[in-house]
C-alpha cells in the first residue's frame, strides 16, 4: 500500500532523511518513534508530498507519488492526514469541517456529504457536537473531529503526526481509542507517536528513527523487550520514565 525506497531529503545542507526504506501492506499499522528532530514528521509528510524529496521513490496504492503526471490534489484525497495541532477550520462548525473535503473538494452533494459526515462523527462519539465550533471543544474532541475530517474522503491510507502530543493527559485515551478502532477495522496507518501502549496493542511493526535514519524495525514485543540499537534502548528508558 505504501512503499518507500531509498528516500532522501535535505533542508539546504542538512540531510533530514537518509535512505529511508519502508513498506506497508494493506491493513498494516506502523508506529514511528524516535527523539525530537530525528525526521519523523518529515518522513510522513513526504508520503503525501507536504514535503518534497531529493532522492528515492515513494509509492502509494501502486502509484508513484512523485511521477510527473501525478496530480498532487487527487493523491492527497487518498491519504488522510492528522496533525499534532488538529488544524480544524475555526470558522466552520464541526459538521462543516468534516463535510469540507466532500463538498468543496470532491463536489459531492450536500445530502450525501452530510450523511457521511454524521456517521463519521457518530463513530468518533461527537454526534452531539455537530453544530459546535472547534473553539468550543476540548483538545481531545477537536482531534477526534480532525480524524473524522481526514476519514471523510474515504482514504485507503491514514497518516498521524503525533496526534496526542498536544493533548492534556486525560484526553489522550479518547483519541487513541478512535485510532485503535480504526486500526482494528483494517485501515492502513502510519502513526508517529510515543504512545507505547497503542503501539503494543495495534502496531504490526515499530520503527525507531534517529538522525534521519531508520535505526531499527521490529515487531512491538521485540522492540519493547529487547531493543537492539543502543539509542533505542536509551530512548525507551527515557519514554518510560516520562
Amino acid at each position, binding site marked *: 500500500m505504501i512503499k518507500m525506497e531509498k528516500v532522501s531529503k535535505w533542508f539546504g545542507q542538512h540531510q533530514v532523511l537518509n535512505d529511508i526504506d519502508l513498506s506497508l501492506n494493506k491493513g498494516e499499522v506502523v508506529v514511528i518513534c524516535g527523539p525530537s528532530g530525528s525526521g519523523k514528521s518529515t518522513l510522513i509528510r513526504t508520503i503525501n508530498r*507536504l514535503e518534497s524529496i531529493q532522492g528515492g521513490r515513494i509509492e502509494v496504492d501502486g502509484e508513484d507519488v512523485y511521477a510527473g503526471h501525478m496530480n498532487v490534489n487527487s493523491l492527497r484525497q487518498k491519504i488522510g492526514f492528522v496533525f499534532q495541532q488538529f488544524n480544524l477550520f*475555526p*470558522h466552520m462548525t464541526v459538521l462543516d469541517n468534516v463535510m*469540507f473535503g466532500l463538498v468543496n473538494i470532491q463536489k459531492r452533494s450536500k445530502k450525501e456529504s452530510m450523511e457521511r459526515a454524521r456517521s463519521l462523527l457518530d463513530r468518533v462519539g461527537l454526534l452531539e457536537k455537530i453544530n459546535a465550533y472547534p*473553539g*468550543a471543544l476540548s483538545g481531545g474532541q477537536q482531534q477526534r473531529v480532525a480524524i473524522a475530517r481526514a476519514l471523510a474522503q474515504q482514504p485507503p491510507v491514514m497518516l498521524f503526526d503525533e496526534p496526542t502530543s498536544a493533548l492534556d493527559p486525560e484526553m489522550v485515551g479518547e483519541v487513541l481509542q478512535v485510532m485503535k478502532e480504526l486500526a482494528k477495522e483494517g485501515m492502513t496507518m502510519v502513526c508517529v507517536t510515543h504512545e507505547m501502549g497503542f503501539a503494543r496493542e495495534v502496531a504490526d511493526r515499530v520503527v525507531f528513527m534517529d538522525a534521519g535514519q531508520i535505526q531499527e524495525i521490529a515487531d512491538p514485543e521485540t522492540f519493547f523487550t529487547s531493543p537492539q540499537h543502543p539509542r533505542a534502548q536509551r530512548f525507551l528508558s527515557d519514554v518510560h520514565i516520562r
Partner: protein
Amino acid sequence: MYLLEAQYLYQMLGGMVTTIQLFIVSWVLAFSVALTLVVIRATEWSVARWLVDAYVEYHRNVPLLVHVLFWYFGMPELLPESVRGWLYQHNAEMSLAAIALGLGAAAYIAEDIRSGLRAIPDTQFEAARAMGANYLQGMRYVIIPQALRHAVPALIGRALLLFKNTSVTMAIGVAELTYQAREIENDTYRTFATYGAATAMYLAGAFLIMFIGARIHAYYAISGGRNA
C-alpha cells in the same frame, strides 16, 4: 423653511441617492478587485507580486482628486472615438467616478485583507492542501473567509472613507450630495443651512454604515475563539 420647498428637497434627496449608488457600486468593485489582488499577491510568482505592489503603491500615492480627474478626462482619450462618444452620452461621469473610486479603494482594502491574512497560521492552508484542496479552493474556503473576519473592523473604516470620498466626484460633475448642496447654495445663498443639511445627511449615512458593519462583525465573529 426654504429647504422644505419641494424643488430643493428633491434636489438634496436626489444627491443623497446618487451618493449612495456611487458608494455601493464603487464598494462592490473595490472589494472584488481587492480580493483578486490578494489572491494574486499570495502566490509565489514574483511578477504577479510586483504588479500588485505597483498597483497598491500607485493608488496610495496619487491624490484621489487627481485620480478621479485622470479617469474622467484622461482615460477616455485612449478609447476609440465612437466608444468615447457613447460613454459621454451615457452618464460617463457616474461610471468613471465609480471606477476611479473603486480602483483606488481596492488598493487599501487589499492591504486590509492582507493584514487579516497574516493573522492566519500557515497550518490552516496546509490542512486544506493536505485534504487535496488546490490553491484557489484553499484560499476561497479556508484562508479568505478567516482573513475577512479579521479585517472587518478595518473594512468598516474603509467603507466610511469611501462613502465620504464620493464627494470629490463633484469635480467631474457627478450630481451627488455635495454637488447638489453647492447648487442649492448658489441659488439661495443659504450657506449654513444648506451645508448643515448635507452634513447631517452624510452623518446619517455614516451611522448606517457603522451600524451595518457592527452587525456583520457580530454575525461573523468566530464562535469560541480560534482555538480552545
